[in-house]
């Protein structure tokens, strides 16, 4: 039995001042239902990636709330919020996938949503720090950018990765986002823009860090049999693997690699019977530019320590050997925390269906990597058309 994506929807990511949490979820949901040509009655369960409704909005029990405001109340279907830091979307996708694979349901929704801009920047920084170890990292003032900076510094020291290489990731992703109408930042930037931006945590600057954004995204999953009835262009989730690791950096043997990523990628390739070379397009978790460089290495797109070379040689640009983040990634598309993992699935689906417009890549096999915190969680999904 295979599980297919039969509909996708997404709001624009960014500072959506005029829209509330419920509005954005509904907007993405309706787009996905229209895309799948469903009325809504067919939905049997909801899985919702949301990291921190409690702290961003003071609202827990978001699962039932979404079912309620999506007009699904009277179907009385189960709805579950899934939380694994900023990998919540990827994990919600996996739970939804397993639910269909089990044979329990034919049609389910995997959604992700976060409304973050109702809190100020300092509190937003504190909430993101909660994806790391509050007691032993947060306590000493290690914010999330500070922890990624420690990773970057060590990567630079060991593999001669330069600040300019990190900057190139931001430049590429901004360039890709120009052709993504749902992206937060749709303007080209230069290496100088990045290099001249102020430090957040050295060596990471403002333009090395993805913005924390509002946004919602939805995919509708169906059993293979149902998918065939619904669409001529199903995109299959070939495998989806989640792995965990020590949450605090200090507990890891080597912080220049994320074992959660290595482990989940290796297992996903094995389940899909492919090698990293077979991946035609990837959406990876560039919450910080160094994370994209490490993703190249940990996903096996290049050898360990050669991530910087890959970006320097243009291999991950659209038109390159393995295009990465054609959507603009978290950096330029925006990082709507719990919505990001689902947004990645939306992008890969559009790419494999040939619906990605001006940012279209020629692809049969796609991959998405969603990370929680500094790698305490990783979710790798392989998609096939």
């Amino acid at each position, binding site marked *: 039995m295979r599980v297919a994506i039969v509909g996708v929807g997404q709001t624009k990511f960014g500072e959506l001042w005029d829209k509330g949490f419920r509005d954005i979820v509904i907007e993405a949901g309706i787009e996905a239902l229209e895309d799948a040509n469903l009325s809504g009655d067919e939905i049997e369960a909801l899985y919702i990636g949301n990291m921190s409704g409690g702290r961003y909005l003071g609202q827990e029990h978001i699962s039932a709330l979404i079912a309620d405001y999506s007009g699904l109340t009277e179907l009385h279907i189960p709805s579950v919020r899934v939380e694994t830091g900023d990998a919540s979307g990827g994990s919600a996708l996996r739970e939804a996938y397993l639910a269909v694979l089990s044979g329990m349901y034919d049609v389910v929704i995997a959604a992700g949503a976060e409304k973050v801009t109702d809190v100020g920047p300092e509190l937003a920084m504190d909430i993101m*720090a*909660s994806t790391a170890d509050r007691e*032993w990292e947060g306590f*000493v*003032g290690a914010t999330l950018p*500070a922890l990624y900076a*420690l990773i970057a510094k060590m990567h630079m*020291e060991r593999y001669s990765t330069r600040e300019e290489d990190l900057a190139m990731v931001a430049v590429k992703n901004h360039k890709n986002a120009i052709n993504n109408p749902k992206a937060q930042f749709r303007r080209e930037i230069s290496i100088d823009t990045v290099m001249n931006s102020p430090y957040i*945590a050295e060596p990471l600057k403002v333009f090395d860090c993805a913005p924390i954004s509002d946004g919602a995204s939805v995919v509708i999953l169906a059993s293979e049999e149902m998918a065939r009835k619904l669409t001529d262009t199903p995109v299959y989730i070939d495998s989806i693997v989640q792995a965990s690791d020590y949450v605090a950096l200090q507990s890891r043997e080597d912080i220049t690699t994320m074992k959660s990523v290595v482990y989940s990628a290796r297992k996903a390739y094995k389940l899909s019977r492919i090698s990293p070379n077979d991946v035609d397009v990837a959406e990876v978790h560039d919450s910080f530019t160094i994370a994209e460089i490490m993703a190249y290495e940990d996903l096996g797109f290049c050898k360990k320590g050669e991530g910087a070379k890959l970006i320097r040689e243009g291999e991950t640009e659209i038109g390159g050997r393995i295009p990465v983040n054609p959507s603009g990634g978290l950096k330029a598309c925006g990082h709507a925390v719990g919505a990001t993992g689902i947004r990645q699935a939306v992008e890969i689906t559009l790419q494999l269906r040939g619906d990605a417009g001006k940012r279209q890549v020629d692809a049969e096999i796609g991959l998405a990597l969603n990370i929680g915190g500094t790698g305490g969680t990783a979710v790798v999904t392989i998609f096939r058309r």
Partner: protein
Amino acid sequence: MLPRFWRKIKYRYNLIGSKCKNCETLYYPPRNICPKCRRRGEMEELELWDEGRVISYTIVHETSDDFKLNVPYIIALIKLENGVIITSQVVCNPSEIKIGMKVKPVFRKYGEDGEDGVIYYGTKFVPAD
């Protein structure tokens, strides 16, 4: 939002971690269960107060409310001579910090709870030479 700090006071103040009696691995922060031996392991508390070297660092310029008044400050990963790695602030001029720098632990203030005025203490590191 700092954690309820008093619960871990002795571990923070004196760098008390744990040692697995089965495989002899040292852990900081302390753990109740050895991730290598799991049920075969047996943990005991051990003071890990030691000098060490900076293996990575960052100078933080933008941060959360709790640390806003301290910027710029240094966060480092320090490998102690006993082999344990710890994430800590290093107190020195930001222009002095380097990978490989020798540092030693000291007892210092970390923060303050605005509402009830509770002061948080813990271990920081300073240049050893």
